[in-house]
């Protein structure tokens, strides 16, 4: 009887399992295999083992893209998390103005990357852009943010933060609204100050969401592509070239599919390690 019951149980998970295997496991395995070959659009030439990986770690441009990607994640991830939390704390109110501001802050998230980068190029443009005009009005010299090696990546980070702040804010709002109201009432009766209430009641209560947001943001921001592609094309002097742009160019400009797949595996490993690390840390703290 139990064997028959087990067989029927498989039917319930089969639809998901099929999609999971076909859409995720198979492409992942194909990508891994591809990364060990010399391939182009016409097919696989030969199996090369780890040669693509050896070449990658000797490729200065690739190593720079790894550094760029890490810099970008460090610039955006923590800020998105903390700013999302801050906004959620301020806007977690029943008043109408808070609802309007919640909508406004979330609105940018629904825009496409093309629109967002277009808007922000107009902000950063030294000649007639918002910041340029403002600098001139204040008697300063306009700065060419996107042509400056030091400032281009922070400029992309600002654009990304503006674009992506809605998601962490909404996740934190949802978490805050799950905190039982009577905990705050008990804290008020216990003479807790605002700061004590925040640090001893609110933050511990939303700890899981905090780590969830960090993990989501790290995974998302490691995959930076559109903003860099549309705002700087990876320049100036590769200063804003992220790993995904490197993969794109290696695969679809230079037709080196095996090499691009190897770079993709490195990115996959980086995201996996970062996410696992966060997960481990959050589980240990939660225990």
């Amino acid at each position, binding site marked *: 009887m139990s064997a028959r019951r087990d067989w029927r149980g498989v039917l319930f998970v089969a639809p998901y399992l099929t999609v999971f295997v076909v859409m995720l496991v198979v492409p992942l395995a194909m990508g891994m295999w591809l990364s060990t070959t010399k391939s182009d659009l016409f097919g696989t030439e030969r199996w090369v083992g780890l040669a693509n990986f050896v070449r990658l770690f000797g490729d200065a441009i690739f190593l720079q893209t790894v550094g760029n990607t890490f810099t970008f994640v460090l610039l955006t991830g923590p800020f998105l998390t903390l700013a999302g939390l801050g906004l959620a704390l301020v806007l977690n109110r029943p008043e109408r103005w808070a609802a309007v501001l919640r909508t406004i802050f979330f609105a940018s998230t629904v825009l496409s990357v093309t629109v967002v980068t277009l808007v922000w190029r107009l902000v950063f443009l030294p000649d007639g852009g918002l910041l340029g005009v403002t600098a001139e009005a204040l008697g300063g010299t306009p700065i060419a943010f996107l042509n400056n090696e030091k400032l281009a990546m922070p400029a992309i980070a600002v654009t990304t933060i503006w674009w992506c702040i809605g998601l962490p804010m909404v996740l934190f709002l949802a978490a805050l609204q799950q905190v*039982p109201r*009577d*905990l705050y*009432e*008990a*804290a*008020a*009766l*216990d*003479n*807790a*100050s605002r700061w*004590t209430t925040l640090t*001893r*009641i609110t933050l*511990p*209560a939303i*700890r899981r969401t905090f780590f969830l947001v960090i993990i989501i943001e790290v995974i998302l921001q490691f995959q930076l592509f559109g903003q860099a592609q549309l705002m700087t094309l990876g320049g100036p002097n590769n200063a804003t070239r992220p790993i995904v742009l490197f993969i794109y160019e290696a695969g679809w400009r230079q037709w080196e599919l095996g090499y691009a797949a190897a770079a993709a595996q490195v990115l996959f490993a980086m995201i996996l390690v970062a996410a696992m690390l966060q997960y481990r840390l959050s589980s240990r703290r939660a225990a």
Partner: protein
Amino acid sequence: MAGVGLAGVGKAYGAVTVIERLSLEIAAGEFVVFLGPSGCGKSTLLRMIAGLESVDTGEIHIGARRVDTLPPGARGVAMVFQHYALYPHLSVRENMAFGLRNLRVPAHEIAERIAAAAASLEIEALLDRKPGQLSGGQRQRVAIARAIVKQPDLFLLDEPLSNLDAALRVRTRLELAQLHRRLGATMVFVTHDQVEAMTLADRIVVLNAGGIEQVGTPMEIYLRPRTQFVATFVGSPKINLLPVAIEAGVTGNARARLGDGTVLDTDVPFPGQGPMTLGLRAETVCVTAGDDAATHGTAEVVERLGERTLVHILLGDGTRIVAEDAGVSSVRPGDRIGLAIDGAAAHLFDANGLGHHRAEAG
């Protein structure tokens, strides 16, 4: 320990009045229960005393201090919440210490108070556990212990027993009564459960639609309900209410004529001729096989409770009445039975719902 004074306290949400200018004095050391149905405003009133709801009109005093303008933490009250509101990420010990630390009570005194409260509620073994590791009953005790360590002027308890199972509820009820006696503290307890109110209270405040229906000791409330609402809300099974015609009896008391023609002499002073509602508690209407039967009816439903039997009876005029019989009763549904009615225990309610009772003894 302090008394509480409410003077003309009112509260409205927009056009909806939830508490109508209400005045009440609670003596120091008294155990007062706010009793009423859902939505009567009893929890709101408690929360207004705690400072968790603002007061639109009137004043609240705790002891000699006016508190309605003070924040909750400055009122000297401790509250036990319906869902306990224990801080989930803090241990039991930290939960109890939280309020004291905020008041900058010295660490050694915090430890002493926690030890004393934990011993008193027998939760010493739980001090290092988190609330999530406790059963409902244990959480309840921790919530009470957290209130005790604050040594407040006033304890506020918002339906604290409603989440416990029946057996634990009875036990905790007893412990609360003992705790009150031991601490001698002023306690205000909110419930919709009349048994909790009757067993715990020095005085019960019966609330209805944001106003006070009656304030009195449990037996005053039960024996001399001021209104028909109070008579109906307190007592199980619900008081029998029968439309009657009133006339003066030979003793000067009211004589009630039931719909089926039965005449019942009451001890209620004659309030004037006219239609009224007769209130009879089930224990004053007894099944009888003898010739003391005041009226007869047909048993419809028989509820055997063990120590007594409740019989739902259809009278000749189509009205229904609940009577009591001995625990071991031979009555079966469909039986035609006689009813002996204790007219001396009868209540009368006029068209405005106001109660008329027999003259008080002495």
